[in-house]
């Protein structure tokens, strides 16, 4: 359905359409190739520490009365479902009451809210999104200098659990396990940035040179294709160049990274471990978060997307016939307490996962502060109150200082403002020159001045 809506070529090359007008990508990659990587490696060492961006996703939202703080500003109160973040509260900004505007469209359960938060407009299916997800836009701007443009991770074992899309047909698939993540980051291609000796590997020179050859020799194919296939092949060549860039970086001694410590390899888990069980999920998630922290500290990536659970949460408790998602719809509200008790537990457990994540990032010393200080993490869900798939007040939290660009640790109540204000603010904090973001009535030029330094 999304296919013919615009020229896909334009979509790919310009990044967004009707959203932020970020003109990056190809020119930078080309410039980068000419310099054999020097242009990008430089800021990684000696200069200011890199600022990283990431998203953290959990499914099925929360129960608003049990989650939303009453007080705004710093030192906000922690209702029961937010109690788990007490240990990291000074790092976490809570954004409540920001709405997805459906504009008369149907509310497609667990899709409308998620697509709107991430692309600036709700879509009925992911293939029909009209702009890339904001992590892709940010990665285009800041991701090129590191080894991976972006890392997508899912703690549920499914590579399709990723909400990062360059366009509706282009899912950035997730690394679905700690073991695979370790191999990807610290496998054969890894150079420890803190090792004294470095010899460029001639095999890598050859790999880079034959790939450049494919890029040069096969470009002529483009002329033979129709517009939409040309856009697809364009994307292929862009991806090929990103691999070339990685190889170019491997030919240079990586700049030192003081916080980088190569972690021990995780053991391959037994296939019988049920990671839909909340206990196993939390353990798996924490292990992956620790590996991700080192991937960031070792300058392997500056952008990531991490899914704790799927949209319409896949979490369960082993032995229970009914999973969290079904429970959100079927559990009766206990009149004596005024809410769904099991739903409350799962929402709270999800927040424990979030607190773990922030704690891991805040636990790595870097420069005068911590890794988290040089990060901006954008955590969100697909709905607010899952029982009726409410997309008003979809919960968002931010963590980190973005290298001093944002103030952490406050609560802002959006009181029905469009949720795109958050996405706009985040992009600006990451240094993108955008003055408006979102589509249709969700388009906004108003950032959140309260959190920008």
């Amino acid at each position: 359905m999304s296919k013919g809506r615009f020229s896909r070529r334009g979509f790919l090359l310009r990044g967004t359409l009707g959203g932020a007008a970020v003109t990056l990508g190809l020119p930078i990659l080309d410039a980068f190739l000419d310099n054999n990587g020097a242009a990008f490696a430089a800021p990684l060492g000696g200069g200011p520490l890199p600022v990283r961006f990431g998203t953290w996703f959990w499914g099925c939202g929360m129960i608003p009365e049990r989650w939303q703080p009453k007080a705004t500003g710093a030192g906000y109160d922690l209702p029961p479902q937010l109690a788990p973040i007490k240990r990291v509260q000074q790092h976490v900004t809570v954004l409540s009451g920001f709405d997805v505007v459906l504009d008369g469209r149907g509310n497609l359960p667990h899709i409308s809210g998620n697509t709107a938060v991430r692309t600036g407009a709700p879509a009925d299916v992911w293939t029909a999104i009209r702009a890339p997800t904001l992590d892709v836009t940010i990665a285009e701007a800041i991701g090129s200098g590191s080894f991976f443009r972006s890392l997508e991770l899912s703690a549920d074992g499914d590579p399709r659990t990723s909400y990062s899309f360059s366009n509706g047909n282009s899912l950035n698939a997730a690394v679905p396990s700690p073991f695979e993540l370790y191999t990807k980051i610290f496998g054969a291609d890894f150079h420890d940035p803190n090792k004294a000796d470095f010899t460029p590997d001639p095999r890598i020179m050859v790999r880079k040179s034959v790939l450049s050859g494919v890029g040069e020799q096969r470009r002529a194919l483009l002329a033979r294709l129709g517009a939409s296939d040309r856009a697809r092949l364009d994307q292929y060549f862009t991806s090929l160049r990103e691999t070339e860039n990685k190889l170019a970086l491997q030919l240079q001694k990586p700049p030192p990274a003081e916080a980088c410590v190569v972690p021990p390899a995780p053991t391959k888990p037994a296939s019988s471990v049920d990671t839909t069980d909340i206990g196993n999920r939390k353990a798996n998630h924490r292990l992956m978060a620790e590996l991700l922290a080192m991937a960031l500290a070792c300058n392997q990536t500056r952008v990531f997307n991490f899914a704790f659970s799927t949209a319409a949460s896949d979490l369960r408790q082993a032995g229970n016939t009914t999973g969290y998602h079904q429970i959100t719809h079927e559990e009766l509200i206990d009149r004596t307490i005024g809410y769904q008790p099991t739903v409350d537990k799962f929402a709270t457990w999800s927040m424990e996962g979030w607190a773990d994540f922030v704690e891991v990032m805040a636990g790595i010393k870097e420069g005068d502060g911590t890794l988290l200080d040089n990060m901006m993490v954008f955590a969100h869900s697909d709905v607010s109150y899952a029982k009726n798939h409410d997309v008003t007040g979809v919960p968002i939290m931010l963590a980190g200082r973005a290298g001093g660009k944002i103030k952490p640790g406050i609560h802002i109540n959006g009181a029905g403002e469009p949720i795109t204000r958050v996405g706009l603010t985040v992009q600006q904090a990451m240094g993108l020159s955008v003055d408006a973001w979102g589509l249709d009535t969700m388009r906004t030029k108003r950032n959140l001045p309260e959190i920008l330094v």
Partner: protein
Amino acid sequence: MKPLLGNWTLALVCGAAALAGLASALSVARASAGEAANAASSTATPMLRRLTEAQYRRTIADIFGTDIKIVGRFEPDLRSNGLLAVGTTAVSVTAGGFEQYEQMARNIAAQVTDGVHRDKLIGCAPGPSDPKGEKCAAQALARIGLRLYRRPVTAPELRWLTTSTLSSAAQLQSFDAGLAATLESMLSSPDFLFRIDERGPGGVVDGYSKATRLSYLLWNTTPDDELLKAAGAGVLDTPQGLAREADRLIASPRFAEGVRAFFTDFLMLDDIDTLSKDVLIFPTFTASVAADAREQTLRTIAYLLVDRNGDYRDLFTSRQIAMNRTLGPLYDIPVEKDGWYIHEFPEGDPRTGLLTQASLLALHAHPGRTSPTLRGKAMREVFLCQQIPTPPANVNFAVVQDVNNPTLRTTRARLQAHLDDEECASCHKLTDPIGLGLEQFDGAGQFRTREHDELIDVSGAFDKKPFANALQLGQLFHDDPRATDCLVQRALSYATGRELDSADMPEIAQLTRIFGDDGHRFKALMRAIALAPSFYALSAEPRSASRIVMQKGKGKRS
């Protein structure tokens, strides 16, 4: 929303009461109409199709041998309009995906040029008359390139590949390492990863592209030497030559692979890869059981439709099923044989037909219990090509799914609440009654007669036709012309890699007639598609923009 293509594609709107569902369905229809002007170019027969994971694996095995290991994780394929095959004409390669392809390529190239394989696969080496190995490289790369690119390597390409090999060899001080580097680049090139059509005369693709389409349709792998030779000699440009090659491919044992590939896609059996069941509730349903359940379904289909050249409709009523020792406990039958064999259930056994196989039963259920709604939805969407809208956002499921409800002990009793609620009933009357016909099979596909000590009632009606149990339900699917119409439509969409539109109606009518006249033999349908001129059409002309509106997505359940 009106059905666009007569009765064989029914985009169901469940009823005026399903307001939210209707609104969302209409918004899809509106979007489709709104983009009609721009859609023309995207409905042209695509020129670029990404190999699926299965095709990549089989292609490498065919070219270099089954002992070449392929290690790595492929980008997920995209399911679009019901088929991964349609998604192959929409996807490209992401940065993460390319990185994987490059690593797999490196790995494959290293194996092809290692001590174990090089003599057989490369077949030459630098020597006194060819000190740098230039002749050897050119000869090996031309031969391998023909297979990898599914067309002859052009002279300038071959010059470049050879030069590149020699320069890499000099840098790495090894001819074989240089050759491996070149092979790696070929395996990472768009010519290998995508099937790229070449234009031939008369608005159709050229001979090599014909060979490629034919081979991936019937074998799900790259053309063999004989087919490439036929393509080069122009044999495929004559109806007789094309028929001869199509018949050769269908007669080959490899045709079963093509049939398995179609049914894997059609029945969405790729989802078995990520299927998980609660091991405390279903201790017998392990990951290996899941994989074997898929293999069982594919083997059963290959046996009935290929080995026996049977009637497609009989899949819904056959008592024969492929079985092995792993699956014995799930089906509650003692298996003494090693390996796979064809088991026959006694007459009247509830285990009859495809609908009662563990793969489909487990796939369309929750991790800890059954779901008549998901099963009913899948039966209509998969076998009848219908579309069931997603539920409205503010739906209240509380009564329906309270498994501890003291008065509503069975799933049927709880689901009755759907049908008592007018808003829910409009869609659920389509899904639940037929799904409940399979309630004697639990969430893992095991047979049972009781739920919470109550006898399970599996009677119902399928579009006003009554059935007493799963056996009779299978018979109703067997007798339903919508099922064979749907198969024809899906097979053509699979073959062409695109969604069908109103311009395809004459072709579909023709195929439906041939299929019916030939006793609904699947072989006959595949042969008819393989010989249809439209299968090789290279349509740059804008087609009618009225396309079949169906939901796309990842296939995650909401």
